[in-house]
């Protein structure tokens, strides 16, 4: 049986079907999790998908972090459960303090949707091990509040500890400090990424299929796990 990866749907989640499709394309089994769930249904990893959870009316991800399912995800993430937060999911991970820093309104103040070039800066996480270090990929970016901010100390630490997993290449699309596109926690199991790998898994619908390795990575890492 292939590994079971949960995809959480909050009211207002939008890219949950896409995340599930990407997991299937990579060879995994996608398990739908509901924001009100009080049980993780035995999943081996979790994806927090993109969207506008609870409308994102207060601050992106601010309300979602209090969802019942999130307290389970937070507990399990602290003991090694692989978690990938994409876009709104990344915002939720920061709001939940599983990841440092915060995501703020794009510096140019517009929502932006474009095919974004990234460089993979770390292959030491369960979500990026299938990439080559320094590999350049192109996947969609779409957000209104995607600018990563953190203090200089935190940023220095992230780079020093090899926890920046991807950086923007070319023009900075949203004012992210030091071009940060994605980061991980200290243990590496929790990863937040602003652009959308789940929209780059089929040539018919995406700009590339460069998003697939994020999902094959975690499947591989789980085979090795007890």
């Amino acid at each position, binding site marked *: 049986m292939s590994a079971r990866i949960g995809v959480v749907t909050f*009211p*207002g989640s*939008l*890219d949950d*079907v*896409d995340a599930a*499709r990407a997991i299937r394309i990579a060879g995994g089994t996608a398990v739908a999790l509901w924001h009100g769930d009080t049980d993780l249904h035995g999943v081996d990893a979790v994806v927090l998908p*993109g*969207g*506008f959870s*609870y*409308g*994102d*009316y207060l601050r*992106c991800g601010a309300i979602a972090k209090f969802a019942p399912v999130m307290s389970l995800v937070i507990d399990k993430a602290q003991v090694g459960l692989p978690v990938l937060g994409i876009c709104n999911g990344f915002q939720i991970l920061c709001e939940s303090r599983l990841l440092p820093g915060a995501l703020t*309104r794009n510096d*140019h*103040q*517009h*929502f*932006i*949707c*474009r095919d974004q070039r990234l460089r993979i800066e770390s292959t030491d996480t369960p979500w990026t091990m299938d990439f080559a270090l320094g590999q350049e990929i192109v996947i*969609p970016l*779409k957000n*209104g*509040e995607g600018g990563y901010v953190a203090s200089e100390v935190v940023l220095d630490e992230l780079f020093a500890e090899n926890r920046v997993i991807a950086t923007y290449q070319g023009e900075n699309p949203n004012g992210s400090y030091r071009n940060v596109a994605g980061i991980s926690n200290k243990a590496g199991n929790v990863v937040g990424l602003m652009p*959308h790998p*789940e*929209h780059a898994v*089929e040539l*018919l*619908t*995406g700009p590339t299929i460069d998003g697939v390795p994020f999902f094959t990575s975690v499947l591989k890492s789980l085979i090795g796990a007890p």
Partner: protein
Amino acid sequence: MIDSVNIARESPDTEQPWADLGLKQDEYESIKEILGRRPTSSELAMYSVMWSEHCSYKSSKVHLRQFGDKAPKTDALLVGIGENAGVVDIGDGWAVTFKVESHNHPSYVEPYQGAATGIGGIVRDIISMGARPLAVMDPLRFGAADAPDTRRVLPGVVAGIGGYGNCLGLPNIGGELVFDESYAGNPLVNALCVGSMKHEDIHLASAKGVDNLVVLYGARTGGDGIGGVSVLASETFDANGPAKRPSVQVGDPFMEKLLIEATLEVLHAGLVEGIQDLGGAGISCATSELASNGEGGMQVYLDRVLLRDASLSPEEILMSESQERMCAVVTPEKIDAFMQLCKKWEVEAVVIGEVTDTGRLVIDWYGDTIVDVPPRSVAHDGPVYERPFHRPSWQDALQADTPTGERLPRPSTPDALKHTLLDLISSPNLASKSWVTSQYDRYVLGNTILAQPEDAGMIRVDEESGLGVAISTDCNSRFAKLDPYAGAQLALVESYRNISVAGAKPLAVTNCLNFGSPEDPEVMWQFAQATTGLADACLELGIPVTGGNVSFYNQTGENAISPTPVVGVLGVINNVEHRTPMAWAGDGDLIYILGDTADEFAGSEWAHLQGHLGGLPPKVDLPAEKLLSEIMVAASHEGMITAAHDVSDGGVGVAVTEMALRANIGARFWIPENIDPFVFLFSESTARAIAVIPGTEELRFSEMCAARGMRATRFGVVDSGLGVNSGHPGEQVIVCDSQFTLTIDQLREVNEATLPALFGGEKCSAQVSESYWDQ
């Protein structure tokens, strides 16, 4: 004191503000005749809104009938004109529904919210048919690109469409962006939505089954969008009543997203007998239409409606256009299950009444009956006008002013041709639209096969089989001004062609007819001509009109906008893998032009740039369009073609440039024999497309064209290696033999600079007040 039916009976002579509510004397008299008494204030409010031009189509009905009368025979039409949206069969048990509507005036008053609620409204039309929305599109028109008003309105409109659609999770797959002085003070904001469903999930707006319950669910009812009715509530009946209500509605896309999910769940669970969205005229419209389409009777307890503002009067509740609400008819056995699903999605719901067999729509307010009317008289049997119309006095002179070489000097040297191309691709109408479209999510849902700037938007409907649909909307209002009959047909054929070049077979048509005042006989003539032209062409092309929308009164003082019949065509493709993109890919692939090029510049983008509008628009050739469509679809299906693009605004020169920019690969082309270079490059003759054919398919392709009598002329070849020999080593270059050479970087630079230069610099200030809403 609430004006009830009893009071109305006893006080027949009470003065009523019917004129302030926009009713004519004879309309007021006929309401009294229908009711056998004076209307109550609530009834008056209902009739006044439902009999307005916007809801009753009183001026347009007699012309719109042609769409039904002249409808081509087709098995594809499952639900036709008259429902919230038409439904078409696309095979494999799948059906699609699509519709376009205008939100012109609200978007001018409050650009962000006006445009946002335009998207919200059209999406609810689609869900009320039982369909899952798949994508949206936004045909937009503004005054001159550099006019202050355009700078005020455009950024807000774009942010509103993006803010709502992105948050709702619907990909935006196309639209239009047109600048023309005629829209100064009257921008057109049209919104289209397409959705899909299995045949068995089609639902209609009808209240069937006596004793079934009427449920109002979604957002609470507030005081928005009832500007006119507040006259009634506050000034006439209670001078100390609530302050004037805002006529602006504020959208809540998150609520709409919950409404979509909740609605689809209750529909799929089989819990719903009939369903209706609440748009214009709110509860008045929903209850009267449901009742009129069903058993004919309904009892409503208006005091049960959940309110956002407790001070609302019953008239205001009836009229409120609060967004994100729906109305469903549910059997008593299933009501608990229905409520349960609403709760799951945190959507408030309340039973406001039940279906009866009395033939009357009766509405109570805390025990008093305030409305007692035959529902058909409100919803369907409103007034119908045969408004006078006549050909404008200036029409002949306009048509006589042909842009011949003597009238408008034409570029003749290679250098002048080159500059003409650069001027065209950097003009606001032909420049890259990415300043706008990059604010829209085109990826969400993961089924977007083609999106802007492709000729058509294309969405995969069935992941297993690859079944998909394509949609395009078009209108050149300059053509429509020169000749509204031909102009509407030209809008149709351009849209039809866009679908075909993408590889999809055109199937059905929707429209949004934006015109000036119907009380002006010259405008009415344009309207009559346009509807007739569209109906005639749809009949000949064999594709039915499934629905649409009319927007009148688009004018400032005496100045009406140019007639703008926006036409949307929907096509089907059996397997989206066969879609034809506009970017060429392979070195050595051959570039063909299909169809004939004539000297046709009246209403063209080139003439527009010279400030000229006159003459007769390009000739419409429906058989040629049909043939071109069949050839393009066959070529895509048979794998003979690697890229294609329709030829329209700016002609062949602009079309090949757009293909090269999209591909970022150069090409060499030449002017075919016996044609003037300027005419070949920039004429806007119709029924033409550019097709890119791999060498291995050339014989098969040209034989197919020859056998079917379609002129196919090879005039270029894709070549990524032209830089070296043309003095631009390492660069992609397009070479027009013995005319000019341009690098793609040069072209891209001028093509992409225009909109940011117009709107980018100001984006910050324009954005300040909207940023509040922006996600």
